[in-house]
């Protein structure tokens, strides 16, 4: 018996709210995402990469945005993390993506944030990575990790 090719099945969808400036709760979404991926039996490599991507995105939302949400989608062939915030938006995404560039205030730097490596880390741990941002509106980031693809 034959059937038409089905689209990649969605194995898991989770939506997490991220509150701005709440450093004590920061990291909880990433920790939860890690737990979900481990529960699905994902490889340690995929779990680590997704965890790093999620943590950096989460910290950026906590430190710099007015809050937003993170959506975790797990499909048969990929893990997707979607970050969307309520502003303020990034005027120059290329500049913000440069290693070492940071607008972190002193108090955040003293806590070890603001190395200017957040977006770089997200990009380097993703197979597909896209940022869209508009000042006054907000920022949307989509990071995709493909399963079963060699990663170096």
């Amino acid at each position, binding site marked *: 018996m034959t059937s038409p090719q089905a689209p990649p099945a969605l194995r898991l969808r989770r939506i997490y709210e991220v509150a701005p400036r709440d*450093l*004590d709760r*920061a*990291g*909880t979404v*990433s*920790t939860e995402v*890690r737990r979900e991926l481990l529960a699905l039996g994902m490889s*340690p490599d995929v779990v*680590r990469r997704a*965890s*790093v991507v*999620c*943590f*950096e995105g989460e*910290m950026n939302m906590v430190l710099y945005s007015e809050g937003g949400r993170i959506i975790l989608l797990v499909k048969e062939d990929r893990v997707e993390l979607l970050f969307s915030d309520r502003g303020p938006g990034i005027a120059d995404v290329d500049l913000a993506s440069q290693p070492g560039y940071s607008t972190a205030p002193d108090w955040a730097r003293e*806590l*070890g*944030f603001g*190395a*200017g*490596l*957040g977006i*770089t*880390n997200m990009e*380097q741990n993703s197979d597909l990575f896209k940022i869209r941002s508009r000042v006054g509106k907000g920022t949307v980031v989509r990071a995709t990790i493909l399963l079963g693809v060699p990663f170096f």
Partner: protein
Amino acid sequence: MKLARVVAELGLEALATGDLTREVGGGYCSDLLSDVLAHARPGDLWITHQRHLNVVAVAKLRDLAGVVFARGNRPSPDVVARAAAEGVNLFLSSEPAFEVAGRLHRLLHP
């Protein structure tokens, strides 16, 4: 080398211990969280001066063998509690980071 032996040899004070049978592959010294996420290897012992809650998350997400707070920088009880709940190994050393790193290196690469 097993974490339990590293802890004994370096005279570290255990603050939170999840799994002391973990293998320690190396060490990493940094106070920048993104730097640790990018460059520390799973199984590394992380030596740092940071001592807030996000340190626990970074150690967990990067799958590190544990965290050593150098120069007697003791974290607050809520940090220790979070680590215990997450199964992250936390240790305290009265020595400066340079000494801890040096002794760890000598131990792992005699």
